[in-house]
């Protein structure tokens, strides 16, 4: 059964920077109209170029940032305002895991104390009961009991990320946003952490949004993938097909740029032109200046994300009415 857990409707985030390139105040549209549905128990991947708004979207899904426009619905209800009482009680069910475990941990606290902190904060357990729960969480993420008294700098990168995951699990969340959770890890340790996340998702019916620029990891762990370009979703589909049959020209370039062991550079689609800059968004389709398939219409009309030949894409050239293209 696919039940909707979380839904984003027309999400927009805009940041004002005090000084632009020519000394004027400018505003940056980091996220520019995103509709997204996350089903219970699935892992949804978000990929796309640096600066395309992935982290900003993730923060808005958790209600850590109030959107400039649009709304996030949690089980059909709008998310309460950040830091309100209603938001706090919901927070225990939603967690964020991000890239740098050392920055997320307190250097002066033992890892057992840090994993147990949410029990205290959310009033879930204390004393011997809390200690038993911490031991259980540590076992679940593959940390040894003798490591309980260690400090973060005494652990390896992979072990630290396990501590962060254990702490995120302490409040029995139902939804976790992972923002580049394995980017700082070696391939060997990365595989350990990815397997752990997969196990947790299977065992406890967790729902996850997994943000990463490592497309191979995304393909492995995610059920569905959304591809972002300059604040918008340009393609969305099951991870099985999105990497084997990318349709949007940006997704095609992205997939072709994945280095494969044992092959050279020849098969790549190298993108021409300026990397995207949200402070100077091109007219029409934001990707058109770098797109090999673009024509005049692409500079004028903003394509919407819609079903074209069985795939959600935002591209005028892929539109059902112009089906002979691509």
């Amino acid at each position: 059964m696919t039940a909707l857990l979380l839904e984003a409707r027309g999400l927009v985030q805009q940041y004002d920077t005090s000084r632009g390139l020519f000394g004027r105040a400018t505003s940056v549209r980091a996220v520019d109209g995103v509709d997204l549905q996350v089903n219970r128990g699935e892992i949804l991947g978000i990929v796309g170029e640096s600066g395309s708004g992935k982290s900003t979207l993730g923060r808005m899904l958790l209600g850590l940032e109030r959107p400039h426009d649009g709304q996030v619905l949690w089980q059909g209800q709008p998310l309460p305002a950040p830091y309100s009482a209603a938001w706090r009680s919901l927070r225990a069910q939603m967690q964020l895991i991000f890239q740098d475990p050392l920055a997320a941990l307190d250097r002066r606290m033992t890892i057992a104390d840090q994993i147990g902190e949410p029990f205290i904060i959310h009033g879930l357990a204390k004393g011997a009961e809390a200690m038993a729960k911490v031991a259980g969480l540590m076992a679940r993420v593959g940390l040894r009991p003798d490591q309980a008294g260690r400090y973060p700098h005494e652990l390896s990168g992979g072990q630290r990320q396990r501590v962060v995951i254990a702490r995120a699990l302490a409040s029995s969340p139902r939804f976790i946003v992972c923002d580049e959770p394995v980017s700082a890890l070696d391939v060997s340790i990365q595989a350990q952490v990815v397997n752990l996340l997969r196990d947790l998702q299977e065992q406890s019916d967790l729902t996850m949004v997994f943000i990463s620029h490592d497309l191979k990891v995304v393909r492995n762990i995610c059920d569905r993938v959304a591809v972002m370009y300059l604040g918008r979703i340009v393609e969305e589909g099951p991870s099985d097909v999105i990497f084997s049959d990318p349709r949007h020209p940006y997704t095609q370039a992205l997939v072709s740029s994945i280095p494969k062991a044992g092959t050279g550079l020849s098969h790549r689609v190298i993108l021409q032109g300026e990397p995207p800059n949200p402070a100077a968004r091109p007219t029409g389709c934001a990707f058109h200046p770098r797109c090999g398939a673009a024509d005049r219409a692409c500079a004028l009309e903003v394509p919407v994300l819609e079903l074209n030949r069985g795939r959600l894409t935002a591209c005028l050239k892929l539109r059902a009415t112009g089906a002979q293209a691509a």
Partner: protein
Amino acid sequence: MSFISIQGLTVAFDGTQVLHGIDLEIGRGEALGLVGESGCGKSVTWLAALGLLPGKARVGGSVKIDGEELIGASRTQVERVRGKRIAMIFQDPSSSLNPVHRVGRQIMESLTLHRGLKGQAAKAEAIRLMDLVGIPSAATRIDLYPHEFSGGQCQRVMIAMALAGEPDLLIADEPTTALDATIQAQILDLLSQIRAETGMAMVLISHDLGAVSAVCDRAAVMYAGRIVEMNDTAALFSAPRHPYTRGLFDAIPEIDGDRGRLKPIHGTVPDPRALPQGCAFAPRCGSADTRCHTRSPEPQAGREGGLLACFHPVAWAVPLMTSPQGIPA
């Protein structure tokens, strides 16, 4: 004669040995990849070779560039050899860009120092280099300070600076880790193109095995301060022999094929202060026996070319990918 010849390079910090004798030869125009888990000594190898480690580091062995010995040479002599011929892109961008100087000025200084370009000529060349590495609106952003660029852009500015001197050897330490896939592809392409045009040699330090195989002729795999396997990229990637190399390959998810569980190497790298006896990889190795736990295997020339330090190599008949020639059973 090799352009760079490293023999028995050792490094110790505060009495803890972290490099245990590195031997490496790099020819003119050659591209060598250096891979291995965090802490295995990839960066330290080149920082030691170029005399860039802090004073407390004890460095031994020999490093020759075009026959000229660098270990034990005077500071000015090392700087002369290094400055003229070798550029290094450091792992941490913030360490080599000066935060109080405009990036354009930093690139132009390098152009003046190495190529004698001044004024408008230096400025035009700096803009061309920034364009080349994919900085948007290079002409208008040349006067910005490093903090006004994103992390990935700073990394590209450093690449531009390193290329400004037209070096004979570029040492690129994780040059593309902060970059996303499409820009990474663009940078790797650029480096390959410059090598083809100028005959520049390159050392690419990276934990991205795909990137290494895409641009390097040869690759060395390091573990706990030693080179455990080295071969042509084609041979190494089609039939890795060291269980550690094989483990690194197996841990990478596939971009096609099934989406099953990943195969990690279990355990973690040893602490250099408490290295296990014998082969340092033995505690994590599926094929280790008592000999591996007591004696350390020496690197030996393999039957199929390359170097290998292992008592129980992975069977040659089990290639990762089908090699074009086919592998004899």
